[in-house]
């Protein structure tokens, strides 16, 4: 038999070891699932996780996928550290795309120096606005931010559907639910010519570094962490809890909105009903896999980006549905949360006591 008992203090080894163990176990189980679907497991895992990187411009594709995941994940890390459960990042991403995209569609001929920064600013504001609603409802009315932010994601999605099938629908789009393509002055600048690697790919690690500094080296970061870990201590210290909840929500909403506008102005190029394959939800996994640390989120974002590329590859090369991506991500989070036990607890082998066993039989 095994028994778990608490450690005196969290294990440093396992706080880094746990994600690695979790990734290994996830790959193992994914292989088993591939086998169950009639695939050669090693070939399938190779197609899913390694082949996408070896393709022409594979690393560029990875960076493009990772940029929104990292940006949102960084914001969520900060938020969850504060014990504020924003899970509606998908909606904040959408609203950022809508707000910034709206500007691009309204002034397609504006000079790029004005238009693009304006779009970024509006994207951030849009995301912040959508995150401000749950923040307001939580601090003013005590409403659970998990449920309100999630409901708002559905509303944002429907708002986008309304816009691209109604007022913003491309008149030359053959009836497809999409807006006109953004003008060239309203596109995210490409920083590595010929690869599609855009401004967001550079911005994401930069923002992660800034967030790390804020969280670990500033008074604000200290307050956020105290509210998250010891709300009573924060109250005694006189920290304004409501204001910190607002701060955490606005930062994460703003980053999600920024990711949204960079995505539609970059790889997508217009507003459609399918601007995100669920980046806002995958970013939750990014935040956890990255140990709720902004720098960790960079590495985690790369892995989750790989799982998206792998899903596409599995669909094209093996004829598997790209739902494999979602399963991989879900299992990864399961194992990660499970393995985190090892940080605070140790597993002890308990030898059955022979005397007790004998008495048991005698009775």
């Amino acid at each position, binding site marked *: 038999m095994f028994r778990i008992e608490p450690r005196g203090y969290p294990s440093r080894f396992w706080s880094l070891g746990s994600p690695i163990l979790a990734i290994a176990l996830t790959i193992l189980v994914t292989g088993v699932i591939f086998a169950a679907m009639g695939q050669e497991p090693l070939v399938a895992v190779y197609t899913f996780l390694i082949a996408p990187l070896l393709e022409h411009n594979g690393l560029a594709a990875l960076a493009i996928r990772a940029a929104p995941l990292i940006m949102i994940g960084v914001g969520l890390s900060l938020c969850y550290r504060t014990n504020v459960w924003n899970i509606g990042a998908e909606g904040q991403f959408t609203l950022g795309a809508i707000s910034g995209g709206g500007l691009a569609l309204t002034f397609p001929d504006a000079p790029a120096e004005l238009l693009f920064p304006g779009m970024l600013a509006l994207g951030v504001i849009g995301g912040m606005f959508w995150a401000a609603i749950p923040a307001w409802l939580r601090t003013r009315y005590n409403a659970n931010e998990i449920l309100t932010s999630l409901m708002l994601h559905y509303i944002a999605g429907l708002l986008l559907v309304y816009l691209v099938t109604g007022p913003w629908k491309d008149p030359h789009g053959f009836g497809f639910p999409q807006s006109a393509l953004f003008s060239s002055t309203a596109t995210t600048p490409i920083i590595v010519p010929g690869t599609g690697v855009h401004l967001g790919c550079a911005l994401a690690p930069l923002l992660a570094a800034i967030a790390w500094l804020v969280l670990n080296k500033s008074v604000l970061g200290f307050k956020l962490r105290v509210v998250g870990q010891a709300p009573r201590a924060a109250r005694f210290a006189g920290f304004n809890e409501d204001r910190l909840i607002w701060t955490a929500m606005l930062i994460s909403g703003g980053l999600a909105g920024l990711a949204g506008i960079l995505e539609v102005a970059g790889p997508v190029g217009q507003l459609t009903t399918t601007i995100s394959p669920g980046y806002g939800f995958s970013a939750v996994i990014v935040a956890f896999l990255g140990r709720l640390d902004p720098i960790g989120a960079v590495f985690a974002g790369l892995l989750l980006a790989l799982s998206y590329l792998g899903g596409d590859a599995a669909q094209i090369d093996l004829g598997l549905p790209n739902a494999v991506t*979602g399963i991989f991500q*879900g299992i990864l989070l*399961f194992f990660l949360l499970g393995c985190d036990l090892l940080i605070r607890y140790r597993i002890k082998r308990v030898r059955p006591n022979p005397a007790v066993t004998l008495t048991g039989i005698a009775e």
Partner: protein
Amino acid sequence: MIFLITSLLVSIIAASTPLMLAATGELIAEKAGVLNLGVEGMMLVGAVTGFVVTHLTGSTTLGIFAAILAGAGMALIFSVLTLTVLANQIATGLALTLFGKGFSSLLGRNYVGVAGPTLPKLDIPVLSTIPFFGPVLFGHDALIYLSFAILIGTAWFLYRSHAGLILRAVGDSHAAAHALGYPVIRIRYAATLFGGGMAGLAGVYMSLSYSPMWAEDMVAGRGWIALALVVFAAWRPFWLFVGAYLFGGIMYLSLYVQGLGIPVPSALVSALPYLGTILVLVLISRDRRRIRMNQPASLGQSFHATA
């Protein structure tokens, strides 16, 4: 006119049933102190499993049992992670929903758009032919009657049975319940599995009765609304019924308005149930005292008997 009201009530009952089934399950889990945010994922897996099994075997009964087992199986993953391995319940519930979305679309990939078998209406003889009352009260499929039977059974169990008292004790103070010698973890396992089974049942109601087919993500947030309903009901069974039917009504209304051809964009009308959920949460939660008095005190907390 009578005919219109009849069909209105029948439609509202149909729209409310999945919410009530899922919320009843979650109520029991939360009363035992377990916050499972994976309802949406469990419903999806229940919906697809029930549909596929019914399609393969031709038996809706087998489909329903398979869906309950599938929902409970999902809840088992959650339970092992949160109860045995002490993972954070919020994060694990989210993981369950993400996994359920992917897993259900994988399971159902060959069944999208396939015309499905439908759960038969019971049409209780004689009674169902009574004008108005017949169709409204006696013309439904078995799951609708079951949803009421289970809710009433749940209310009785929680407040009139010894086992229910123990379950509530575990949810209110796991340390005290443990000290009294009750198996906290085992009781929580049972409550969570019940919740999962009910979510599976709610899911299969969607795919066999409400809209008899399988489509990706067909649960469309109902699992989350069910979670909100438990808060709305302040963890009391009667108010769960009220909430489920209120939201069933709103969902029906949003469909009905779209059908009328009123020049309101249908996408915006579809947002009504989600807006309504937010509004209702706000109205209930602003009374902090009521929430604090009714919410199980150990809700969402891990328990590990250190002794």
